[in-house]
């Protein structure tokens, strides 16, 4: 059973004279992790602020579980949990006091849920310490605990892995997958790192300069993205030869770039047979810039 939990239509935002969000449309379903991918300044945080009711859209509508954020703010917010930018909690209160503070703002809050959430983010040991003594990773976890207090259907996380170490990033990733798969939450995750989105999301919206360039599943998006890089000499001859079997581009470091293919070993064989030295064949980790170059047709990223 998949229902639409978050729907955004024609969302726009002008700050001063500048239009920062230029019309966004997408829909999220329950149980999916949705990536919100864009470079710095693309408008991810601005969009998220509108989704959670912190700023008013200039035009367009946002619905959380069928409730309009503007017209039915209280109902919409009771199905939504979020962290916008950094998880800023009250440093002079303990972790537990912070959670209690926010639980008092939820109608008919069930206090058993508090313990459950604390266990879920594994903060039992430090929950009675003041938040000012927490590490960034612990603050992130407390931030998530706070977002989960109201048993939301939609969880919105703005760059949740920001500032975490590789171990923390992995834990966070697994935790987000767990919430979506086991708890059936819709999770919207923003990031400027393709690698991160690739590892934890089902679908992704790529945005740049306030516009959605593409919404697709991660699999489709990466498919035409993975490439092989060849370091050969002489370069010109090698290029001519490879062009007979596939598309070839020359990159900045004078290397040849071809699509990833299961025929690559035969291409290699062919090159060697024609007396061309192959120094290196590399599978290229897709980078955001390249994806953008492809999607925007060469328009550079700001």
């Amino acid at each position, binding site marked *: 059973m998949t229902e639409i939990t978050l729907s955004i239509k024609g969302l726009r935002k002008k700050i001063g004279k500048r239009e920062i969000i230029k019309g966004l449309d997408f829909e999220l379903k329950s149980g999916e992790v949705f990536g919100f991918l864009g470079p710095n300044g693309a408008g991810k945080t601005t969009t998220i*602020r509108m989704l959670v*009711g*912190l700023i*008013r859209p200039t035009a367009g509508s946002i619905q959380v579980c069928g409730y309009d954020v503007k017209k039915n703010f209280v109902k919409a917010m009771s199905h939504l949990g979020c962290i*916008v930018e*950094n998880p*800023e909690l*009250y440093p002079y209160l303990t972790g537990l006091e912070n959670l209690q503070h926010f639980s*008092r*703002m939820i109608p008919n809050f069930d206090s058993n849920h508090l313990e459950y959430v604390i266990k879920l983010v594994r903060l039992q040991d430090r929950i009675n310490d003041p938040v000012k003594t927490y590490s960034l990773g612990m603050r992130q976890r407390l931030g998530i605990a706070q977002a989960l207090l109201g048993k939301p259907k939609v969880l919105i996380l703005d760059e949740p892995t920001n500032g975490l170490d590789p171990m923390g990033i992995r834990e966070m990733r697994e935790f987000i997958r767990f919430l979506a798969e086991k708890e059936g939450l819709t999770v919207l995750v923003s990031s400027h790192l393709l690698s991160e989105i690739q590892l934890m999301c089902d679908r992704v919206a790529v945005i740049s300069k306030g516009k959605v360039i593409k919404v697709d599943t991660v699999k489709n998006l990466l498919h035409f993205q993975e490439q092989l890089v060849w370091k050969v000499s002489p370069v010109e001859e090698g290029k001519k030869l490879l062009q007979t079997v596939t598309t070839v581009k020359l990159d900045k470091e004078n290397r040849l770039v071809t699509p990833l293919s299961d025929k690559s070993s035969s291409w290699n064989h062919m090159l060697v047979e024609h007396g061309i030295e192959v120094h290196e064949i590399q599978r290229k980790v897709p980078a955001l810039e390249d994806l953008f170059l492809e999607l925007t047709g060469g328009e550079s990223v700001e």
Partner: protein
Amino acid sequence: MNKLIFNEMLKIIRKRKLIVVVAIMVVLISLFTYAQFREVQRQIEKLGDVDWRTTLQQQIVDTQNRLTSSGISDEWKAQLQIRVQQQQYYLDNNINPAEPGAPTFVRSFAQESITLFVPLLIMIIAADIVSSERSAGTVKLLLTRPVKRWKILLSKYIALLLSISIIVVLMGVLAYLISGVVFGFGGWNAPVLTGFTSIGGELNTSNVQLIDQWQYILMEFGLVWFVAIVVGTLSFMLSVLLKSTSASMGVMLAALIAGLILSNLVSSWQSAKYLFMINLDLTGYIAGSSPPVPGMTLLFSIGVLSIWAVGALLISFSVFVRQDVY
């Protein structure tokens, strides 16, 4: 709503704002008690007598000497003349205006602190109550709960009113206890005169009433509380409008100090009486000192202050409910 107010009180207390305020009060009240004590000692040394009539007579002579000297402003001269006439009235009716004891200290302390000291203490809490959430970023969490924005602001305002009431009551209690150790705790029923009015620099005693000191103190604290709420509401508005706590403190402080300076200058500038900071000295009216601008009355000042407070509340709520939060 009760839970929201509880949250706000919790934050004020855990941020140690109230403790800071109490500490400041204890230090200053002790200081004033000591100063008062030295003054009494000096009088005894000088006159070799502790009878209040002698002291009061001496004060009247002192003030009259000052009045004859040149180089004091007309406003100040009028004030002093009124005071001399008052003191003479006390003397003629055989009533001691400064019955020694803690209640008398509390009475004069409340009178002196209404224009600056109390507003300063209130600002410590009010200026920070919204802007600190903005500068710390916690406002994002606060405003994404399933609670309407006006309710959140209202809970903050009610918490502020509670804190103000606590501070005003504590101020009375602390002043009584600390000064009582030095001057003794009695004197609640000492007679006090109120109802003096001044018309054109002349003291009018036709409405003067004799009341017990405790009644007078109660009236005074009512007025202090009212002024504290008005100043608190204005700081609250600044706290909503300005992102930084120090900026809202600075603006409010500038206004208060400007008020003190203006009060001694503006007797000929009629429209200054609509400024809130000129109207803060409400206890002056029941003590019978002459108002900053001739013709101002207690009711007028209360009216002006109420209008400022209501305006500030309207602005606070309409801005906070609509504002984009970055």
